[in-house]
Every structure is written in structure tokens, then in C-alpha cells.
């Protein structure tokens, strides 16, 4: 059996990405939508590390892009969860169909 190729990893990352897209479209709970976004971000992080490792193994660009993307997604999650908790305080619910305005 031949060694592992770049394509094998990319297929896994594609499946993860489109699972996230499916969840983003079909979920109706704000936290579930945020979880789907995490899946999408994570699959893109894998891609950066993969291209760095397989195509340009002497450099570190993809490595650092993944590192900073993890930091940015942590920020984004924290602020989004703060907003969701604030919404829950106001309307006692976090289903998207009940959300019509940002403030009353």
C-alpha cells in the first residue's frame, strides 16, 4: 500500500466542512449554529496545516495561520456566547425564529 497522500486528508476536511454547512442551514438554535461554525473553522485550520506540511515543509506560514485562526475563533466564540446569553436574558429563548430585533 502506498504512503499517505495530501488528498486523503483533504477528503476528511471536506466532509467536516460540509457537515458544518449542513448544520448551519438546518439548525434553529443559536448555539447549535455556533457549533456548526466551529466545525467549518476547524476544517479550514486543518487545510492550512496540511498545505504547509505537504507542499512547503521548510516554511511555517500555514502553521502560524492556523495558530492565529485558533486564537481568533476563541475570541469570536466568547463574544458570540456573551451576545447569546444577553439575548436569553431579554427574551428567555434562543431560537432564531423568535429573534426579530436587536434591542427593544
Amino acid at each position, binding site marked *: *500500500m502506498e*504512503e*499517505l*497522500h*495530501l*488528498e486523503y486528508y483533504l*477528503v*476528511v476536511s*471536506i*466532509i*467536516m*466542512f*460540509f*457537515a*458544518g*454547512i*449542513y*448544520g448551519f*442551514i*438546518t*439548525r*434553529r*438554535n443559536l*448555539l*447549535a449554529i*455556533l*457549533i*456548526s461554525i*466551529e*466545525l467549518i473553522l*476547524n476544517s479550514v*485550520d*486543518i487545510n492550512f*496545516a496540511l498545505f504547509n*506540511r*505537504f*507542499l512547503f*515543509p521548510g516554511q*511555517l*506560514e500555514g*502553521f*502560524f495561520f*492556523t495558530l*492565529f485562526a*485558533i*486564537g*481568533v*475563533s*476563541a475570541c469570536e*466564540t*466568547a*463574544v458570540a*456566547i*456573551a451576545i*447569546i*446569553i444577553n439575548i*436569553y*436574558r431579554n427574551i428567555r429563548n*434562543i*431560537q432564531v425564529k423568535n429573534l426579530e430585533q436587536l434591542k427593544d
Partner: protein
Amino acid sequence: MNISTQETVFFLLAAVIVLFSIMTVTTKRILRSATYLLFVLFATAGIYFQLDYSFLGAVQLTIYAGGIIILYVFSILLTNQQADEKLEKLKNSKVVAGAITAIAGAALSLFILLTHSFGPSRLASGEIPVKAVGTALMGTGKYQYLLPFEVISILLLACIIGGIMIARKR
């Protein structure tokens, strides 16, 4: 036909990622969804370790699996009266639309991926020394990342202040 250890590990991680990322978006209970997301993130860290990016794997484990999942679990418990309240039932048309979008997109991406040649590529071996990572992170020269490092520290500070401002009681 013999399968090496590295291939066994890869196929195991790939199976975990595929299975649990699909279960994350299809399960009815949101707390289970967060738990399956945790498994996906663990397997992703495993892939980073397999690529010999141990530092990245450690960052993934501590920030994602250690920090973000805890945030999710706490906010799920804070915003649901019953923790495993079932998610709302959807109209079938929405599910079909989502499935068609995802499958069409995946098919298109797979087609492009499998017909495109990346040129010679092989899994390079050898750990990146942490000293090289640190030098690149703290230098100001070409291919060094002091400025993004400072920018992301400002971003984290802004995020802390913003989180407190948004979520405080009035």
C-alpha cells in the same frame, strides 16, 4: 498488503472525524452535539500530532477542547431550562434543502480535488523545534510574526472587555 502504523492511525482519526462531525449536526440534543464536537476536535489534534506539529496539537487541545467546549457546555446549561431539551423539529423541506446544498458542495469540491494535481507532495517527517517556532513568533524580519502576535493580543483584550460589557447585568 500490509498497513503501516501511520496509516492505521490516520484511518482511525478520519473515521472518528467523519462519524462525529456528521453526528454533531444531526443529533437532536444540543448537549450531545457539543460532546460530539469535542470528539471531532480531539481527532483534529490527533491529525496535527500525526503531521508532527506537536505545538499546534497542544494548542488545539488546550484552547479548543479545554476552553471553548467548556464555554459551550456552560452556555448550553445556562440557556436551557432542561439541559437535554430536544431541538425544535424542522420542516422536511429545510432539511432537504440543507442536505442538497451540502452534498452538492461536497461533490463539487471532491471533483475539483480529485481532478487537480498538487504536484509532488509527501508527508515530510521531523518535528519542528519549539525554538524555531518561538523565534519566528517573536521576530520582526521576513516570515516572522511579531506584529500579528501583538494584534491578536489586542484582539483578545478587546474581546474580554466586549464580553464583559455585553453580558453584564444592567
